[in-house]
């Protein structure tokens, strides 16, 4: 019996017929949303996400997608509407960036607190003031404690694949948490890259719709109250359940990424290691920035430097075990981020978690945090090479950088950061 099941799985596992298209990140996301056949989308324009909304309405207008599109009057209402639609039993989607994400911030906690499988795309963008429409991760990092599963994409293909996987994860009865998939504003949202979409049939095979009623919904035949008052006698327990759900979602995320690879040849884990086998210095990064770090690693390898990189794909739940395993043998660890925690112990919020993950496992080694690329400031490969060299200095001296190094600031020498 078990053998028969295995054999059938093998047959199913044959990679689907490949069709390659050229698409920008925004269109890849819209295609994924179409392919998983969402029921309700709430849309509100903000740069650089608008094309997702435009494309979805185009699909609906052309009957390529049968969905209700709510042209909400704000992002706060967008998130409210999709949480309510999910609670009614629909497969839902919305997308936003920057100020839009901040505007819906209150509702992010309510989406996760009500355990609604909302899926959202975030074209990462800087936050006002001053107003800036270009890429950094301030918006994404601002939602790190809202109870959402957070998946960062490195390229257009990943954005598509992550959205399809997001539905399978979010709607899994053992998870029932909202999922956000990021794609770097402009760098991915507006850049045309090759894309192999699964197509509707295959996407729905991978992320099938579950029978209505498999999870509690607003059903007149089985009335339930959602969003009641969490009195002190119960609130604590409810929050702990949410913690457990986030911890346990790891299993489903892992299984989903592995299964995706088995079927389509592109495997996904919590992290991606690049040249880490014999690496002596490593930078941890995420999103499309990881591609730049890879390029820097290639350049350094040519110079004979044993550099490596770890990309964090799933930022929430944070992959501490995987990360530590990848980093335990290097001499020095750095982080490169495009988000600031003003007044923090260091200003890079990513570093705080990487350092904590290592320290809790008794691993102490020279470390440094780097911030570059705020509000669309271009990060050059040579900048990252310089970061690696800085990291090597720390490795040699056996010291850590007490402050975050800010690279790419006009008229600023990053070494001065250590004096302030």
């Amino acid at each position, binding site marked *: 019996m078990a053998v028969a099941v295995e054999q059938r799985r093998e047959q199913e596992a044959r990679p689907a017929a490949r069709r390659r298209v050229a698409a920008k990140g925004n269109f890849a996301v819209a295609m994924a949303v179409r392919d998983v056949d969402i*029921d*309700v989308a*709430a849309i509100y324009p903000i740069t650089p996400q608008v094309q997702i909304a435009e494309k979805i309405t185009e699909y609906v207008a052309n009957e390529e997608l*049968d*969905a*209700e599109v*709510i*042209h*909400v*009057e*704000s992002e*706060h*209402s*967008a998130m*409210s*509407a*999709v*949480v*309510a*639609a*999910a*609670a*009614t*039993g*629909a497969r*839902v989607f919305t997308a936003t960036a920057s100020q839009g994400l901040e505007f819906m911030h*209150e*509702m992010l906690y*309510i989406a996760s607190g*009500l355990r609604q499988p909302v899926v959202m795309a975030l074209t990462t963008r800087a936050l006002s003031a001053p107003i800036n429409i270009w890429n950094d991760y301030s918006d994404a990092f601002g939602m790190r404690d809202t109870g959402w599963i957070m998946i960062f994409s490195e390229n257009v293909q990943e954005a598509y694949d992550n959205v399809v996987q997001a539905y399978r994860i979010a709607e899994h009865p053992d998870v029932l948490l909202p999922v956000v998939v990021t794609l770097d504003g402009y760098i991915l949202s507006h850049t045309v890259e090759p894309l192999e979409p699964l197509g509707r049939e295959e996407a729905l095979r991978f992320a099938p719709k579950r029978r*209505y009623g498999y999870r509690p*919904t*607003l*059903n*007149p035949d*089985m*009335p*339930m*109250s*959602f*969003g*009641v*008052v*969490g*009195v002190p006698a*119960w609130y604590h327990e409810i929050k702990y359940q949410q913690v457990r759900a986030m911890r346990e979602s790891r299993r489903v995320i892992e299984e989903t990424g592995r299964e995706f690879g088995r079927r389509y040849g592109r495997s996904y884990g919590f992290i991606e290691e690049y040249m880490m086998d014999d690496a002596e210095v490593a930078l941890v990064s995420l999103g499309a920035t990881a591609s730049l770090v890879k390029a820097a690693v290639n350049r350094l390898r040519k110079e004979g430097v044993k550099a490596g990189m770890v990309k964090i794909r799933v930022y929430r739940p944070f992959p501490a075990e995987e990360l530590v395993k990848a980093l335990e043998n290097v001499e020095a660890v750095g982080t490169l981020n495009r988000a600031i925690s003003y007044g923090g112990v260091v200003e890079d919020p990513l570093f705080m978690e990487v350092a904590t993950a290592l320290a809790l496992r008794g691993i102490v080694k020279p470390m440094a945090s780097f911030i570059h690329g705020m509000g669309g400031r271009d990060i050059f490969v040579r900048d990252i090479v310089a970061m690696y060299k800085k990291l090597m200095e720390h490795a040699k001296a056996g010291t850590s950088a007490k402050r975050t190094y800010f690279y790419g600031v006009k008229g600023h020498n990053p070494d001065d950061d250590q004096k302030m």
Partner: protein
Amino acid sequence: MEALKKPVRTIWDIPRPEQFAPGHNMCQGCAAALIMRMLMKVVGKDAIVVMGTGCVEVTTTPFPYTSWKNPWLHLAFENTAAGASGVEAALKALQRKYGVFKDRYIKVVAIAGDGGTFDIGLQSLSGMMERGHDVMYVVYDNEAYMNTGIQRSGATPLGAWTTTTPVGKRMRGEPRPKKDIIGIALAHRIPYIATANPAYPTDMMEKFRKAYETRGPSLVHVYSPCTPGWRIRNEHTIHVSRLAVQTGMWVQLEIENGKPRVTVKVPKRKPVREYLRIQGRFRHLTEEEIQKIQRMVDEYVEEINRWVGEQAIGPVVEE
């Protein structure tokens, strides 16, 4: 229990079964409790309730208890109409794509307080009305933010004491008249708008029924005395409600497809003094201030009469 099909003419037309259960924590004499009970009798079991943060929400759902026999959703304070829009859109998609609730009409009922409607929720309400969602929106208006302890809202009437419009040397209660939410709804040209009042239960339920039967957005604005907030006696809720209508402070309106009508005519009006004098929130008013409110009501009544094209509300007759 099915939704009410027959018109409500007398109390004998009011259905016996209850969809709103007793045992909630609302204050004695709270009109909102009555309003909820009457509303749910009308809409029956095939209705999904979306409610904004406020007194009714917190008093009816202390986990693990609930007063709601219907599916019920509370998201936050300012987004009742957006949540209702989401439920309505989802129902449409589920019915069309998967045949869920096939051949059944499931009504979406949004309920929020005056603060959640006139002020912080106005944007989401405007969006819902403008987009034409099939949602019936009921605002219970106790004329202040009661849940947080009687702070003024855009619905607080001229002269009323609240904790943020105190009576002192420089401030004498609320300095501005009530916001015209009906005018705002009218500007959205929605098919059904009404005002209702718990002292006229059959009129109120008939309006709920018509809002229910409307396909598209409807708004019922319900007068809702709050005993601690208005500083009235628990047994005065209905008395005060009736006086509001009899003095012209509150006019029972119905606007179907833009056509206005007064449903409870008042041939002889009582002076507003009678309404104001029995409420602690107006206790500080001088005769001069009362006359100012009287003149404001006279003008309002005149405006209504002009609008409906008849003398629906008569002149003040001192007894």
